[in-house]
């Protein structure tokens, strides 16, 4: 199981702050593609972290069970 955390405007789209994705051997790129199809993030940009480290969205990485992915959009309030 892979845990995905959501923040800011992304969490408003998903209507939850985290969820567990039951997939094994899925690539990070495919996970992001699936989430985009499911939630339609559209114009909301975000950075992606795997295990507390920001990585490129196009990085070639196969997610492992127990990996934690986070979607971090920029905030603009102040």
């Amino acid at each position, binding site marked *: 199981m892979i845990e995905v*955390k959501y*923040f*800011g*405007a992304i969490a408003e789209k998903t209507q939850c*702050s985290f969820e567990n994705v039951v997939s094994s051997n899925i690539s990070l790129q495919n996970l992001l593609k699936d989430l985009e199809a499911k939630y339609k993030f559209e*114009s*909301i*940009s975000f*950075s992606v*972290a795997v295990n*507390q*480290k*920001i990585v490129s969205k196009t990085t070639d990485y196969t997610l492992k069970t127990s990996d934690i992915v*986070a979607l*971090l*959009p*920029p*905030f*603009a*309030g*102040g």
Partner: protein
Amino acid sequence: MNASSRYNRQIILPEIGETGQYKLLKSKVLIIGAGGLGAVILPYLAAAGVGEIGIVDDDVVELSNLQRQVIYKSSSVGKYKVEEAKAMIAALNPDVKVNAIAKKLSGKNAISLFEKYDIVVDATDNLQIKYLINDACLITDKPMVYGSIFRFQGQVSVFNYQNGPTYRCLYPDENSSSVNCTDAGVIGISVGIIGMLQANEVIKMILETGEILSGKILVYNVLNNEQQKYDFEKSDSFVIDRSTFEEKYSQKENRVEEISAEAVLDQIDNEAVLFLDVRNEDELPKITFRNSLQIPLINLENEIEKLDSNQTIYVFCQSAIRSKIAVELLQKMNFKNLKSVEGGALALKPLLEEKVIVRD
């Protein structure tokens, strides 16, 4: 100045001492934005004895600001935020020199402003300005203390600290969008917590103590008190120097400001505004009223002496294409207060007919 008694409680901290207090007094911090974040960062830095603080904001205090911008009073409404902030700090700690800068930060003033300070604090509510602050910090080699809010969540980081990663390394997509507090809503306490974390980073940098949030973004959720830190690395994909900076930001600032036809109608009796019709004389419907003047676009440069470059001018044409060209032309000739009327004469006409001003 009776420094030892004012600052006694912090001087007795081994991490500060007389040396640390002297560092605070000698430091210069620039805060961009005197809103929710700025209103927390400013008094805490001033109370701690930061010697010189610049604060940049061209807004006036509004009633809806007071639930979170706690340094202002009900009687501040309608007054410049930076002036009110300066008066508040003068009463709090006369050791601190406050530079109240009632201007919008722009590509034109950012670099010369940043050069006068040691640390720049981003207390703005606008993504585009964050890129401007980031880029100007890169050029002037200043650390940028970032903070921002989305509803009950906040982010804090320090960019460009000792050549560390920048805002662009974390968020390379400059064209992204995110809502601010006006649109999303916010409670004062969330802004207060994030502003306080920013002030804490500033003080640690000055005192050269603790660990700076460089290459890390802290995300705080006030509803469940969860906080997470994410690491990010410096990316070399963005390079900027003074000339590319100027090119990039001067273009953005010359864009044409627009005003809606409805808003124009409210100003129609305002003698301080000139309504400039840049259509040809044979174009219908004719629109003339007390403060209107017709100079066809093609004649504008030759008849420029008919206009006062300090006057507020609302430019219109048939459908707001030529009026934008006219505004750009006038901007190049140093006219300052210009707006193009959205929809032009075709939008104005039905509104004016209701007011019975059109002579057709």
